[in-house]
């Protein structure tokens, strides 16, 4: 009985964790090339979720297709925020100003969504939410299978892109040393734009898959982003492997805390872990090669 509960919550934890990984990877990629944080990343998640919802309910399209739409909405927002906030502020060279500006964007977007969509949660049901199969004593919905499959494919593609393509190599070069990469004939501005588009597409995609799991309100992204920030620090800023590991850990913490303790304690446990990491190993779970981050 207890084993079943533990396994069942492990599935739930991995489902949540892989979505958190998608959100956190975007933050960490941007930090890698730009050493900046996009606070409005949360609202890309929410807008992706609303885009998918309205595409399904107004156009009548299938769920898988609407995940693609959320992806495109996210990518467009990423391009926009890079062009309007990060590019103009890069010349000023202040590390905190872009973060403060994106907090402004985030507050603005959340409250605009609040006036458009209202505070009442939307029921985002897909045809896969109710289709459940049994696996031993554990129940798994097709929704969960889709989430794990899509996010694994996305993460694997991203990993392959970074490791094996020329652009991916250029991207890693920029994140190691932007100026030298520029001397090697790499256009950092183009790559920074590309990073924003990829990172935000992942956020939009995560939104479309998170909404059926959590509740869809204009503030849905905020609860996720706070955990994503924690994941980025626990995994090590700019570290892809560390982020994946930390994301899964936080997902599991969330599902087990809900089962065995109290859902109100989730944020407290996650942030206690964050403060602990800052105190003992601020470089993150997997040691970072670059020391100047700290």
């Amino acid at each position: 009985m207890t084993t079943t509960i533990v396994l069942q919550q492990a599935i739930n934890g991995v489902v949540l964790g892989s979505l958190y990984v998608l959100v956190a990877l975007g933050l960490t990629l941007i930090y890698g090339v730009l050493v900046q944080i996009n606070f409005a990343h949360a609202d890309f998640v929410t807008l992706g979720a609303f885009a998918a919802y309205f595409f399904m309910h107004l156009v009548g399209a299938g769920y898988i297709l609407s995940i693609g739409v959320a992806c495109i909405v996210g990518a467009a927002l990423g391009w926009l925020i890079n062009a309007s906030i990060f590019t103009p502020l890069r010349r000023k060279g202040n590390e905190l100003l872009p973060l403060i500006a994106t907090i402004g964007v985030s507050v603005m977007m959340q409250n605009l969504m609040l006036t458009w969509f209202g505070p009442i949660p939307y029921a985002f049901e897909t045809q896969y939410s109710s289709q459940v199969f049994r696996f031993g004593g554990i129940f798994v919905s097709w929704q969960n299978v889709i989430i794990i499959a899509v996010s694994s494919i996305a993460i694997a593609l991203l990993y392959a892109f970074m490791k094996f393509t020329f652009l991916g190599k250029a991207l890693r070069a920029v994140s190691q040393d932007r100026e030298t990469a520029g001397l090697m004939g790499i256009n950092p501005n183009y790559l920074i734009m590309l990073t924003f588009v990829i990172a935000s597409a992942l956020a939009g995609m995560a939104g479309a898959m998170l909404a059926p799991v959590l509740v869809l309100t204009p503030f849905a992204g905020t609860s996720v982003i706070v955990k994503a920030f924690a994941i980025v620090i626990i995994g090590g800023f700019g570290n892809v492997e560390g982020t994946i590991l930390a994301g899964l850990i936080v997902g599991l913490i969330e599902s087990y805390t809900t089962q065995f303790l109290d859902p109100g304690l989730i944020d407290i446990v996650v942030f206690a872990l964050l403060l602990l990491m800052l105190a003992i190993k601020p470089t993150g779970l997997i040691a970072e090669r670059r020391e100047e981050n700290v």
Partner: protein
Amino acid sequence: MSDPAITRGLGKGSIVLASRQSRLILAALAIIALPLIFTDTYWRTNLMICAINVLLALGLDFILGYTGQLNLGHSAFYGLGAYVSTLLIVKLGAPFWGAFVAGVVFAGLAGIFLSLFAVRLRGHYLAIASLGFAVIVYQILLNWISLTQGPLGIYGISPPPAIVVGGTTIVDFRNLTSFFYLVSGFTFLVYLLLDQLVRSPVGETLTAIREDEVSAASLGINGAAWKVFAFGVGAAIAGAAGCFYASFVGTLVPDAFYVSEAFTILAMVIVGGMGTLIGPVFGAILLTLLPEVLRGIGDLRLVVYGAALTFVVLFMPGGLVQAARFVQEKLRPGGQKT
């Protein structure tokens, strides 16, 4: 036979000093006059909220503007000050001013505790750690129902006790005007103390750390210790604002100290002009009163805050102070820069 350059310098200095003193006297007169001009409860309530917000903005500005630490969790210290003082009064029957001191000290210590974690790290770590701290404090206030009554809130918190001399009541803080004088007087005092502090060698030390911590360290300045000190002072000021807020509003619910409150205070500091003391004062007053003046916008209040934050950072990073200087230079005959 004095050197003309020195005389001119001295003359200029005394003019600056005189104008500084006259500005402070003017500000004090304005504080005294305001509740006499605005006699209805609605505007007096707004004045009170202005005074509390100015206090909050001053505390955050001391942390952010003078030591460059991006604190996204100012709402947490505000909430801790409010809840610690109120719980001491309601649960243990502590006297108001004792509870006030306890709330201030507790908030200050919480600030020191938090900054100790992140002081060795770059700005982004502190930003996220402080945001996380604000989330934790909010969740604790919400979920520790046996102590804080969670979302139900604490009701019937009384204002500070009246000042009674020889059996006759001299000042009764149930009177909104007296309470406003108390809070704005306290805020004025905090402003004066911070003003003295940033003009003293301590202020120069803090600015040196903000501009270049490595160079400051090479001059023998312990940057980490000063950053922790500044964080503690700023958090303690927020704690004082919390105590006043609780006794003014009379009810406490955790939602008043949600993370969005920290962003609101941040917007006040940035819009006013961080790194100056006068900027956040006007930033807080402007952003408190603007939504009241533009009543029609209703739910769009926070949209205005967000837009103000973004556009000020993009186009006028010095905030209102920068705008005022720009106008002053345009108006000066000849129009050249000094």
